[in-house]
């Protein structure tokens, strides 16, 4: 049976996610290629959550062979895998999840790849490092990938603790998915809107010339605009500005009701607080406008910056207003009146869009580029989200570790024993513990019962070395929280708990999807989770 508009097989399978990120997001996902370093439980779970929604390709780099311990935490290995390549077996079992996804594996260590064939890394969309990777290798990866704009996730999952660090150079987001993009232009109506107000509300106070039905079906936007005109005529042409004036305005609205159950007036009253805000460009949008990449376009400027610049110029020519998004919420009204009002907003949005498209074309030509290289649909999406766009400028691992560590962020948290920064310090110590051992026979802190005490002391030493390096002063009681965090980390003996790995896989996959689709807002730049108290905190490190 073929009905126009009926979903394809693929749309049926992906229906529940297409409702979140649409065809554009799906397309981005399907052309992505993820590199996973080490098929740990957390790494495999992350891939599971990316293979299911249909990521294009993934590659697993791992030299390990599957052990019995792996089977106790990783669902994507089975009894027949023992003794075989972990990269290969995890790849096979993950590929079963979705025939549309291509999986690859490399039986090698990331250390070797970074040293001998770093050019291989440039083909990936996103890199996820899990398991025990030493600091030098992480920093080398970062030095290769960060300048190329390839996001790196560094994921650590030990016992009840996890951390995920995202190194993301520049990440502009247009489709941030705000709860609403409605802008009713109440304080600065455009001429077509004002004309409709005059036409429809001329007899709002005249029971002779307007029927009760008509009065009860006036769209609330028109009621608000008419009442605002009335208000302004007695208030120096100013709209209500403070809370008490807004309440006074609500009373004025109420006095215009002809009977107690006029829902449209109730809607108008309810809209006063959320919609009576003086027009202003939100700070995130302003930051984009003021960014050097926006103020000085070049031949290489990306689409985002060209459109951002065009919208900036548009707003400068239009009293600081952004292009109208054009959305109108539902409201009590006759069908034809609502549709007419909706069309007035939509026409204005289309006119604004046309103006911005014109500026985009001129900008491109001025740069010596093809005026048509940016599709109108891209400009339209940006115009609809102009007040909600966001730019994330992350920090590289090299900045965090060497060039400009955020010592202040850490020292501010140190005295709070419940802060998750203690787990950050504990996991950094864990990494240092791993990094000082040779590649071949690494053991984790607390791997054997007999080493628990000695390893605990070693981790403490690593923490104090790190704090000294960052010139953070501390007293022994300041480190109480850190000692407990170290206690939990050593207790796990370097092992993953499946639940925490699975949760980690969910958190990381969400972030990867947000980064790849350039929709929604990824965290910036480190999230810690404590599975004991079930809390997360995001730090900018």
């Amino acid at each position: 049976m073929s009905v126009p508009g009926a979903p394809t097989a693929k749309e049926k399978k992906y229906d529940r996610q297409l409702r979140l990120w649409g065809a554009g997001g799906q397309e981005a996902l399907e052309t992505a290629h993820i590199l996973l370093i080490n098929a740990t439980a957390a790494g495999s779970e992350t891939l599971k959550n990316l293979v299911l929604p249909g990521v294009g390709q993934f590659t697993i780099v791992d030299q390990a062979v599957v052990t019995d311990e792996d089977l106790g935490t990783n669902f994507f290995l089975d009894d027949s895998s023992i003794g075989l390549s972990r990269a290969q077996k995890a790849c096979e079992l993950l590929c079963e999840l979705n025939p549309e996804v291509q999986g690859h594996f490399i039986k090698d260590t990331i250390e070797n790849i970074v040293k001998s064939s770093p050019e291989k890394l440039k083909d990936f969309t996103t890199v996820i490092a899990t398991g025990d990777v030493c600091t030098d290798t992480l920093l080398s990866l970062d030095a290769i990938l960060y300048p190329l704009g390839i996001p790196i996730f560094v994921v650590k999952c030990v016992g009840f603790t996890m951390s995920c660090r995202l190194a993301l150079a520049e990440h502009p987001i247009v489709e941030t998915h705000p709860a609403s993009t409605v802008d009713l232009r109440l304080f600065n109506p455009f001429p077509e809107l004002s004309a409709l107000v005059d036409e429809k509300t001329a007899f709002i106070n005249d029971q002779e010339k307007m029927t009760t039905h008509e009065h009860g079906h006036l769209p609330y936007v028109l009621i608000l605009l008419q009442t605002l005109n009335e208000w302004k005529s007695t208030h120096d042409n100013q709209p209500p500005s403070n809370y008490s004036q807004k309440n006074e305005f609500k009373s004025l609205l109420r006095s215009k009701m002809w009977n107690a159950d006029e829902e449209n007036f109730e809607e108008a009253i309810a809209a006063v607080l959320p919609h009576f805000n003086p027009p202003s460009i939100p700070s995130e949008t302003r930051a984009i406008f003021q960014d050097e990449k926006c103020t000085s376009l070049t031949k290489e400027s990306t689409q985002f910056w060209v459109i951002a610049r065009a919208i900036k110029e548009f707003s400068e020519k239009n009293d600081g207003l952004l292009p109208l998004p054009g959305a109108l919420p539902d409201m009590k009204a006759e069908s034809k009146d609502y549709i007419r009002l909706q069309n007035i907003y939509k026409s204005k949005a289309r006119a604004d869009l046309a103006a911005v498209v014109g500026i985009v074309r001129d900008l491109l030509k001025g740069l010596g580029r093809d005026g048509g290289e940016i599709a109108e649909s891209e400009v339209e999406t940006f115009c609809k989200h102009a007040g909600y766009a966001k730019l994330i400028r992350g920090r590289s691992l090299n900045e965090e570790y060497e060039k400009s560590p955020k010592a202040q962020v850490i020292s501010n948290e140190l005295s709070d024993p419940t802060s998750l920064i203690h787990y950050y310090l504990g996991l950094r110590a864990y990494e240092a513990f791993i990094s000082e051992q040779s590649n071949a026979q690494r053991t984790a802190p607390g791997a054997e019962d007999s080493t628990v005490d000695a390893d605990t002391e070693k981790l403490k030493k690593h923490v104090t070395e790190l704090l000294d390096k960052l010139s953070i002063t501390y007293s022994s009681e300041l480190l109480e929280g850190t000692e407990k965090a170290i206690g939990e980390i050593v207790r796990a003996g370097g092992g993953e708990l499946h639940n925490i790995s699975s949760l980690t896989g969910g958190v990381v996959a969400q972030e990867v999807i947000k980064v790849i689709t350039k929709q929604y807002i990824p965290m910036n730049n480190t999230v810690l989770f404590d599975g004991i108290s079930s809390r997360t905190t995001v730090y900018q490190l």
Partner: protein
Amino acid sequence: MATTTVLTTESPDRWKYLNNILTRRGPYSDETFEPGDEPKAFLADLKIFGAGGLGCEILKNLALSGFKDIHVIDMDTIDISNLNRQFLFREADVGKSKAEVAAAFVMKRVRGVKITPFNCAIQDKDDEYYKQFKIVVCGLDSVEARRWINATLVNLVGEETLIPLIDGGTEGFKGQARVILPTISCCYECTLDMLTPRAAVPLCTLASIPRQPAHCIEWASVIQWPKEKGDLKIDMDDPEHVTWLYTKALGRAKEFNIPGVTYAMTQGVIKNIIPAIASTNAIVAASCCSEALKIATTASPYLDNYMMYTGDESVYTYTFQHEKKDDCPVCGNLPQALTVDPESTLEELMEKLQERPETTLKKPSLRTSAKSLYLQAPKQLEEQTRPNLEKQLKELMEEGDELSISDPGMPFNLRFIISFSS
């Protein structure tokens, strides 16, 4: 390395990492926690129950947490739209029982675990059945099923029995996990007012002044379908039915110049589709099962009692203790206050009740202590009480009366003390 005998029917190394947690005390472990063989033995013997849309994740997680005796109930069969997240199912499984396919898969993958599947509704099992479990983990997708299992476990509380309910749910990039200790901490019913009330579209909007594509779709399903198809029930999963509704809605939209009716939106509106992705399901199910492991072994403190996860804007969790309500109809003992308009009719009151999450019921029957106001069954009593629907409330009750509402889907009554609005 700690040696184990209980958890390991396989190799002694298989559960090494889990055993690290069970054989070593952590800095946050409760004083009563005795590291060693006891928590492991307890884990292996404990019967645990899982159900719901998060079932795949829950079964995998429980099996890899060392639980050995797991029951699962799911009345659904596998649909193509499940495959983007319910990872134990393949295209060839479409149409088969979810519980059975999932149980077989996990038992094959994780050696030594026994999973007993039931292809039925959770409401089909009685108190005796639920009594056998030490913990219940649910990722159910309806409010109704959650209220039912919650009330059932609260009712089971006795000298020997207290079954913790661990509940999770997701929507898009957001989710929540919570631990309910029946009668001790806040229960599901205590927090029903956190749900956003349904924004019901008035019938007159659907019938005469549609403005939104959703109005056209609801008109097709609520008004046009019964008019043209009579008693035939809409099957949301029958593509012919959906296509019929879509075509009708499209025609209606054209008549009123309303843009935006699509097939996907038609499905979304009539099935009340909630976006769902693998990653969020993973987060919430893992959080629930981690709590189950902590409660079963006391290896670490458990969640007290609510965690909300929000992933659409950075990563944000809100972990807090939700308070138990004294007037909770399930776990409290006091009736709630209800203000009604004495001039309105009983039928209007029943419509109003449907707008509040805590009184949204399928077939509510209403009584005061003095008389039956409206009973849905049996037939004679329904007919006998039907005339009351037209009557004004002031004829039927007085201020201070206790109004009791029951529903065949709910194993408890809602109790209200009536006051009149002036």
